[in-house]
């Protein structure tokens, strides 16, 4: 037996194309996902240099950021339309499979990769999108890249990468009822800060992580970038294998069992060393609500916004509170909202929708609140409709939409107006993220659903009878 290795060591070793003193390593990329916003300039670069796409078969494209979620037949924004048409043309010219706006596989890139079984343990996965870290939930090394790197991967199927340091985020104990993967990752970021993962790949370990569903693991890995880490992953186990069984792009039958054994062998070895380890206890975590303008600015729902003079960085806190239109020491439950967004690559999968629906069932959206549900993919939408979740949402007064990024970044028409306040299941509460002057509070799907009903934040555990597990 050799030295115990982490999953990152193993994936790195398996993808090394070329190594040279004083240079980053040249790494092979197994899967390259593409969307309409960060790819046009990369294809333009290929054309200018007369280059082709090396492995169209390892490249997969969809449209998600710009697509309308109401009426797909009219795209009023001419520039959005042009961007989508450009992707269509690029995929056609270079032989890349595209899940177009009306395609049954369409959806948010980080939702469809796993659904189609394209995302698999041990793969190196990149996309011109920082939330590519989501795919790490499967034990893949997945990270976001810029457009120049997109072009580089298209042309060479490789990237020059410096070997990252590893950070073990160990979560002891288990989450309480009504406390979700979203609360866990928000609590981690608020405890350790928005920079603690910079320069690292995070591996999440421990009982609470093992007990999460694949959807929950995706929620956690998704927000690794919000802690500064380009990638976050979880060693594959039985949960991973069972999720992938029968998915379209994985081997079937006996071949699947052989593949599954390979996947399981990738898990971090007992006794492997990390560059850093931090620990958090899941039992201490309560449902979280962000109050400020970065995802680290979060507190438990039963507490209040910070005391400016007691804060480590008073200027930053004061600025954030001002933008958010909040007082210091204001109880979180006293904050009224006017928008609710259930969606995004963080929380728009079928279990997220089931959990939100079970809170909503039999209630009504509060007066003056506009609430929308945007399933993460067309497939998720169909599944939810099969289960009647759409009816539950609609009867309660939610809008039920087509899939896409939507109000997560408000690039299409789904915008929170200036001064509007949104309980959102997405991942970023930056200034203006959901619309110029809009105020975003990050929460779990259950907490968003409860806020929609009450018109302000409440502890979802109050709906104990409705909590889905």
């Amino acid at each position, binding site marked *: 037996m050799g030295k115990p290795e982490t999953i990152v060591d193993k994936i790195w070793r398996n993808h090394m194309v070329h190594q040279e003193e004083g240079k980053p390593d040249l790494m092979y990329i197994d899967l390259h996902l593409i969307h309409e916003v960060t790819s046009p*300039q990369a294809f333009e670069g290929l054309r200018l240099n007369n280059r082709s796409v090396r492995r169209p078969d390892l490249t997969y494209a969809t449209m998600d950021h710009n697509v309308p979620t109401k009426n797909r037949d009219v795209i009023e924004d001419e520039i959005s339309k042009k961007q989508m048409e450009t992707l269509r043309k690029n995929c056609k010219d270079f032989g890349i499979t595209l899940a177009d706006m009306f395609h049954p596989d369409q959806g948010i890139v980080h939702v469809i990769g796993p659904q189609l079984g394209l995302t698999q343990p041990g793969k190196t996965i990149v996309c011109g999108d920082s939330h590519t870290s989501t795919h790490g939930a499967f034990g893949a090394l997945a990270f976001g*890249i*810029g457009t120049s790197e997109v072009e580089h991967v298209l042309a060479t199927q490789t990237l020059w990468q410096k070997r990252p340091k590893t950070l073990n985020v160990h979560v002891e104990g288990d989450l309480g009822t009504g406390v979700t993967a979203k609360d866990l990752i928000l609590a981690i970021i608020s405890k350790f800060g928005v920079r603690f993962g910079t320069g690292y790949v995070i591996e999440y370990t421990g009982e609470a992580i093992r007990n999460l569903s694949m959807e929950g693991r995706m929620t956690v890995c998704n927000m690794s970038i919000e802690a500064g880490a380009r990638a976050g992953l979880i060693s594959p186990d039985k949960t991973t294998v069972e999720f992938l069984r029968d998915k379209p792009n994985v081997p079937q039958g006996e071949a699947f069992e052989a593949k599954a054994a390979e996947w399981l062998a990738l898990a971090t070895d007992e006794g492997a060393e990390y560059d850093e380890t931090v620990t958090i206890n899941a039992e201490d975590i309560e449902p979280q609500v962000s109050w400020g303008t970065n995802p680290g600015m979060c507190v438990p729902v039963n507490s209040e916004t910070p005391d400016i003079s007691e804060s480590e960085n008073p200027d930053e806190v004061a600025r954030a509170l001002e933008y958010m239109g909040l007082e210091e020491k204001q109880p979180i439950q006293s904050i009224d909202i006017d928008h609710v967004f259930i969606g995004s690559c963080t929380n728009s999968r079928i279990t997220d929708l089931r959990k939100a629906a079970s809170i909503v069932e039999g209630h009504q959206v509060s007066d003056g609140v506009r609430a929308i549900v945007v399933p993460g993919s067309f497939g998720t939408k169909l599944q939810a409709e099969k289960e009647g979740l759409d009816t539950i949402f609609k009867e309660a007064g939610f809008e039920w939409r087509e899939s896409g990024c939507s109000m997560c970044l408000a690039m299409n028409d789904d915008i929170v107006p200036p001064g509007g306040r949104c309980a959102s299941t997405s991942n970023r509460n930056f200034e203006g993220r959901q619309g110029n002057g809009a105020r975003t509070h990050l929460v779990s799907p259950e907490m968003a659903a409860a806020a929609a009903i009450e018109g302000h934040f409440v502890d979802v555990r109050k709906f104990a009878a409705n909590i889905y597990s």
Partner: protein
Amino acid sequence: MEAIQKHQGTAVPLNRSNVDTDQIIPKQFLKRIERTGFGQFLFYNWRFDEDGNVREDFVLNNSAYHDGTILLAGENFGCGSSREHAPWALLDYGFRVIIAPSFADIFYNNALKNGIIPVQMDEEQVQQWIKRAEKSELELTVDLQEQIVRDDEREVPFDIPAYHRENLLNGLDEIALTLKHEAAITAFEQAAE
């Protein structure tokens, strides 16, 4: 990418930490399919209010800094999305150097690929320059070959990984460099079959 060896310019103080890419270039401007023309939208929501009026108190709207080419900022500059539109906007506006105590990983890479020098320096030094630049004009010279930033009094060293420094200094096309390893890539693919 344009080669860059040395750059001299006026420093612009942006004393904020965690400046995210949504601030650098808001999403409504990400719909262009070219690499150019983003400068007019740089820090749009900080430069202009909701009705499109100039916000006089924002540093880029102060005429003293109109010719600035070196941006001084707080920790974790460029956090958030992977959009390369952020360095494109900075470059198009005229910035060639960003000096900050730390950078987000993806932004750091994206800057390097576009001929912007991301200079990482200790917080105290950056704060000292920010304070000076807020009071009066501060000229800095960034020498990439020597890995030194000079003000009128002294020289402060910084570090850029050798590989990236080479590429910046020579304005190299990284894809062409990688394609020299094509045999190794093909061999890797064959072994994986």
